[in-house]
């Protein structure tokens, strides 16, 4: 009596009960609903646009804008009211968004790291103040903080004629902060070239020093050599070429300042609010990261005879960074997205000048909002890519 193995298969599920068939059917239903939804929207939009007389497409980007989205002294893309187009408005907004995001990210990181470490201070008073700062900023909407900085702080400064000054070269008033800009003369190119050379040399030096320390354990004073290289080389270049640079120093003429660059109060208010708001979140990340490194690591480092500073730099921070980096990446993304709140105080960022004014003038809502979203999508992806690369670099190398 031979038993045929394999013949006693489970009873076949009915067609409607088969998991695979169900999955396919669900997908067909979802996709057809989605397609119907998109078709409904597109159809309505085309009809509505035709009714409103709006020409769909991106031709409007080539039309003359006819408005001045920024003050003449804070004009990074040389926007000209008579000849610049909506495309130039887009470019101006983009540059301003990137500028404020970049400055914000750098400053927020600095603030966040300092406060995060202070929050863990053994000094109760200091850690208490850090806690007040963190809780106070994290629990109040950013938009409100931007308004407080703008209306409460920067607009309360003295007016232009009685500006606060720092050494007669930097002036601060209720409209802007103006500071000198260098004007290069012939032969100045040697300075940036030497600076780049110095930075390149520092990178090479740091790599070499790390390799040597990993191999032999011998240390090299990378920090001080780097400082020396970066200062001495460009200075040398300046001396050799005889300081070919003049400063355009702002001076009060009549009712306004002439010369220099004027960064508007809105810029500083936005920068301050973004920095302190995001800084508080980063501080919490830093605190969590440092606390995640077990105390045994510190003790082991001390047992090996490392000094406290070295312990921090070589043992604690590298391990803490692995915990700190991912949430901090999302804070950087948040900061970039939050810079769009500029619209509340009139800093000419992308959303304010392009999605705000250009949209109102041209009516091409679909294109403008899609373009704006695309820009933020791209910036988000770029920051994510960079931070993922960095995260991979510092990640624990496991077997």
């Amino acid at each position, binding site marked *: 009596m031979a038993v045929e193995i394999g013949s006693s298969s489970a009873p076949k599920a009915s067609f409607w009960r088969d*998991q*695979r068939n169900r*999955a396919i059917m*669900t*997908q067909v239903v*979802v*996709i057809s609903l*989605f397609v119907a939804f998109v078709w409904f*929207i597109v159809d*309505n*939009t085309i*009809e*509505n*646009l035709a*009714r409103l007389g709006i020409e769909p497409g991106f031709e409007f980007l080539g039309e003359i804008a006819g408005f001045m989205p920024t003050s003449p002294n804070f004009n990074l893309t040389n926007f000209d009211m008579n000849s610049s187009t909506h495309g130039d408005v887009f470019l101006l907004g983009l540059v301003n968004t990137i500028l404020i995001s970049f400055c914000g990210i750098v400053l927020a990181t600095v603030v966040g790291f300092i406060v995060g470490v202070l929050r863990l*201070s*053994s*000094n*109760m*008073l*200091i850690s208490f*103040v850090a806690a007040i700062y963190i*809780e*106070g900023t*994290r*629990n*109040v*909407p*950013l*938009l*409100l903080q931007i*308004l*407080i900085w703008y*209306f*409460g702080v920067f607009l309360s400064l003295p007016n232009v004629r009685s500006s606060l000054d720092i050494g007669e070269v930097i002036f601060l008033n209720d409209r802007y902060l103006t500071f000198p800009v260098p004007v290069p003369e012939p032969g100045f190119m040697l300075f940036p070239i030497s600076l780049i050379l110095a930075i390149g040399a520092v990178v090479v030096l740091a790599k070499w020093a790390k390799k040597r320390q990993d191999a032999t354990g011998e240390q090299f004073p990378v920090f001080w050599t780097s400082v020396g290289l970066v200062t001495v080389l460009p200075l040398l270049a300046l001396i050799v070429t005889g300081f070919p640079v003049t400063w355009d120093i702002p001076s009060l003429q009549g009712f306004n300042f002439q010369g220099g660059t004027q960064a508007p109060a809105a810029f500083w208010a936005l920068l301050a609010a973004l920095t302190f708001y995001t800084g508080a979140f980063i501080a919490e990340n830093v605190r969590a990261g440092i606390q995640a490194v077990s105390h045994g690591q510190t003790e082991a480092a001390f047992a090996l005879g490392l000094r406290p500073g070295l312990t921090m730099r070589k043992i604690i921070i590298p391990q803490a960074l692995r915990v700190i980096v991912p949430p901090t990446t999302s804070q950087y*993304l948040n900061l970039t*997205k*939050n810079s*769009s*709140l500029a*619209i*509340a105080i009139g800093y000419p960022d992308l*959303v304010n000048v392009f*999605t705000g004014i250009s*949209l109102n003038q041209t009516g091409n*809502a*679909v294109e403008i*909002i899609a373009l*704006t*979203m695309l820009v*933020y*999508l791209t910036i*988000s*992806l770029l920051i994510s890519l960079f931070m993922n690369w960095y995260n991979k670099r510092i990640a624990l190398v496991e077997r």
Partner: protein
Amino acid sequence: MTDISYVKTERHESLPPPKSEVGIIHWLRSNLFSTWYNSIGTVAVLYLFYLVVPPLVDWALISPVWDAQSNQDCRFEGAGACWGFIGARINLFFYGFYDMENYWRPTLVGLMLLFLAIPILFEQVPRKVASGGFALFALFWAIWAIGGIGTVASLNLAVAAGVFLFLAAVAIASYLKAPRSACAIAVVAAFPWLSVSLLYGPLNVESLQSGFGIAIYAILLIGGGALGLWSRQRRDALGTMVGFLLAYAALVIIYMSWGMDLTVQPTNTFGGLMLTLVLSVVAIGVSLPLGIVLALGRRAHTMPAVQMLCIGFIELVRAVPLITILFMAQFMLPLFLPEGVNFDNVVRALVGVSMFASAYMAEVVRGGLQAIPKGQFEAADSLGLNFFLKMRLIILPQALKIVIPGIVSTFIGLFKDTSLVSIIGLMDLLLIAKSSVTDSKWLGLEHEAYFFIALIYFVFCFGMSRYSIYLERKLHTGHKR
């Protein structure tokens, strides 16, 4: 025998610890002056306190003007904050431009929400206390409403009875130890519509204007109910669900169009804290279920098309700022809909904020789903549970429990983000504050207005974050060493 008289026969009394190791001096030394840089820090912080605290206390508490008719009353030498301004405009800050006669409507909704939330939020509140609280609330309401009929023109018997019945039902259900899920379903099914009717009033449902429409709804209601009951007897889950859902939908629409015959309060009169709360509560209520659906869709490995749609939605929404989504809701929604169909401004903002919050919530829930070991899924499968039962009974209770802190912090973010609707012109707390100081009577009182609303936002957000910490502690008892 050797003489051992030099050995003590009685125990020496313990000495007090050295002065430097106990008491205030030790505390100061170890906490504030342990090293030279800590000492410098302490002195610096104390100096900072000296600079900031006394003027602030003086401004806010010692020399403010508590009673003012206009900003002129606050403009004298040594005057502190002009709290009289807040006192004079407090209704504006809380209710916006809502009819003063109808303030009881949002207040009642808020009270009901509070009473419903407390037993859900704090599990150790005994059932008897919760149901007693509700019964008392219902009683007070009945007394107030009966006393108010005739005096308050807009309050009628239907409202009084409706709210009383709802409160009494919750009280009884809670006292009878009905399962928590049954209570929750009852509340979820009834509370939103009751609140919308109370806040807004009757909705204008066009299909209910004609006799034919009414007949259709009646058929839906009765037919749906009958189908549900019949299918239930036949143990047909699908039929039961479809039947009861149809009947429920018809009932809701009929009820909303009746709206207890209250006067209509247009949404453009909503404002202040009330609008902020409406926006955040609705967005919270929508984003949690929608976020769970999106998270499940994102992890549906057997259905790549569904997965792609969910990933696309989540990542797109998370990559762009909320303000662009609000702009989209403002400028593009009208283009997307057929001519003539128009949404209310507040509803548009609600759509935008809810979409935004759902994407973030989906990511939080996904984190929880990923933390559940595969064995749990397999165990549920091997028990023969279908997808919905598996999720409802096995996976989601565990997954959601893990991510409660994340969910609460999403709520906090959401509450703060509602302030962005002020940019598209809704009169929320922030815009009320901003515009109330442009009133010529109260010009130049930005500091007071912003300080006041910052305090309100802080109380809500800080309260939520403390609650999240409390939950975290409560749920982590199992891992404590």
